[in-house]
């Protein structure tokens, strides 16, 4: 099966999309991440859910996760308010790695898609046909296709 067949429609976010809207889109659609398109409409990068958390959780808490236990719900609310007035651009690591995008051609095989996902540790790849984005493939959809069917109980 080719990437074109596996690809699903996906919501477009841009670098200037409101960060809160992007995070809510991700949770509403239950996608592990979003494809971020550049000004030319081509995929710019992938925004995985973990990057949203990396933006929200202070580095010092990431370094010493035990500190999170000292924070109460109010502090947690304060942390998540960081999304207000932020854009997708703020959520992305700086500087972005332009050469390392999880993108596959529409005629790539499912194993090629799996190889790109594994190499880039991305839960999502964008599928392109020339300059046109035809959809995205999530790790769940790919695994569902690759795994052998469970025997009927």
């Amino acid at each position, binding site marked *: 099966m080719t990437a074109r067949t596996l690809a699903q429609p996906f919501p477009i976010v841009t670098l200037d999309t409101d960060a809160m809207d992007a995070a809510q889109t991700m949770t509403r659609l239950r996608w592990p991440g979003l494809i971020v398109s550049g000004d030319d409409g081509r995929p710019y990068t992938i925004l995985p859910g973990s990057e949203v958390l990396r933006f929200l959780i202070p*580095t*010092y*808490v990431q*370094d010493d996760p*035990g*500190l999170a*236990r*000292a*924070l109460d719900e109010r*502090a947690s609310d304060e942390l998540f308010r960081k999304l207000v007035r932020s854009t997708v651009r703020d959520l992305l690591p700086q500087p972005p790695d332009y050469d390392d995008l999880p993108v596959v051609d529409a005629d790539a095989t499912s194993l090629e898609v799996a190889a790109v996902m594994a190499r880039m540790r991305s839960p999502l790849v964008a599928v392109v046909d020339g300059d046109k984005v035809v959809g995205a493939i999530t790790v769940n959809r790919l695994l569902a296709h690759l795994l052998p069917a469970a025997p009927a109980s």
Partner: protein
Amino acid sequence: MTSVLVVAAFAAAYVLIATERIHRVAAALAGAAAMVLLGVVDARVAFFSEKTGVDWNVIFLLLGMMVIVSVLKQTGVFDYLAIWAAKRTRGRPFATMVMLVVITAVASALLDNVTTVLLIAPVTLLICDRLGLAPVPFLIAEALASNIGGTATLIGDPPNIIIASRAGLTFNDFATNLAPIVIILLVVFIGLCRVLFRSAFTYDPERVAALMALDEREVIKDRGLLLRSGIVLVAVMIGFVAHSALHIEPSMVALLGAGALVALSKLDPPEFLEEVEWPTLVFFMGLFVMVGALVEVGVIGRLGTLLTDAVGDHYLLAASALLWGSAALSGIVDNIPYVATMTPLVQTLVDAGNGVGHATALWWALALGADLGGNATAVGASANVVVIGIAARNGHPISFWQFTKYGSIVAVVTIAVSWLYLWLRYYALG
């Protein structure tokens, strides 16, 4: 001819270490390899010579303390102490800084400086975040405090461990000769903090509630482990204090303590070896072989004779030069290779003085200069570099000159006070 080649190889390796053109471990190992290839050092000298080989007491003392730190880190005790202390001050910025400085200095006297700042910096950022304070002054103060506190004891700073092992000085020798001046220096340093960082102490009563809402009890991850670790740490400290009476080396005390903690904590090897800095241990080994080669070919002996003739009875002058010279050099280059090179030379001077107080004070001049001099610049001590790295990753960059502006003042003042102490205690009144 061999002596000239050994000196050239030593100098080349030292320049590589100082300039960091290649990794310091590679430079030290290359230097050690050169000594082996020149035929000055063989396996017997490198591994079994107490005077010119690898000083296993230093290596295993460091290893033991690193394992102890690995286990202590799992308890969350530093986070608890810092939050508890900040809450006691009710968020008053200067009082909070004093508490954090004292915790850092005391912890650095008992543990490695780098580990101490690694443990205290994240919780400092949290406290400053809650209080809406700029964290940079607090982080700089902690790096400086760790270098001051580490000077107090045999185990506080690697140069002290080298000096103790090479000079045969005990934990109590350090405690009685260096700890008193370090307490004075800490008081002076806190006074300096009040002046140097005065613009950082803006008090916002509305932010205090955010600090007081932190629950320090929650950061203790394993109360049982904390209790067991505390008991073992106290036993290790008693072991250090009593090591000369018990005729047991500090390295054995540290290893026994580490073994006890590993057994009691039931942690897996990756966890209790997490804080072991293997590159640092290998760096020390290479360094000992390099310096040992200088001793083997008689270079250190000849230099020692020259120095002894030059110093004569002027021990105060020698101590002053050693203190200020060590401080100046340690602000620029790594103080570990410097102290490793200087210890055989200082030993010659102390031996020439028949071990009387005037002469043994040279050891304290070397330790004070090398340890406190690290505060002078942003790259003078590993703790400074680590704090600057943590600050940058958390979006609070500290420039070389920003750190050095504060560090150089603190270094000059603390060295001046130390000189006064040396003069009064060992020469004017001694």
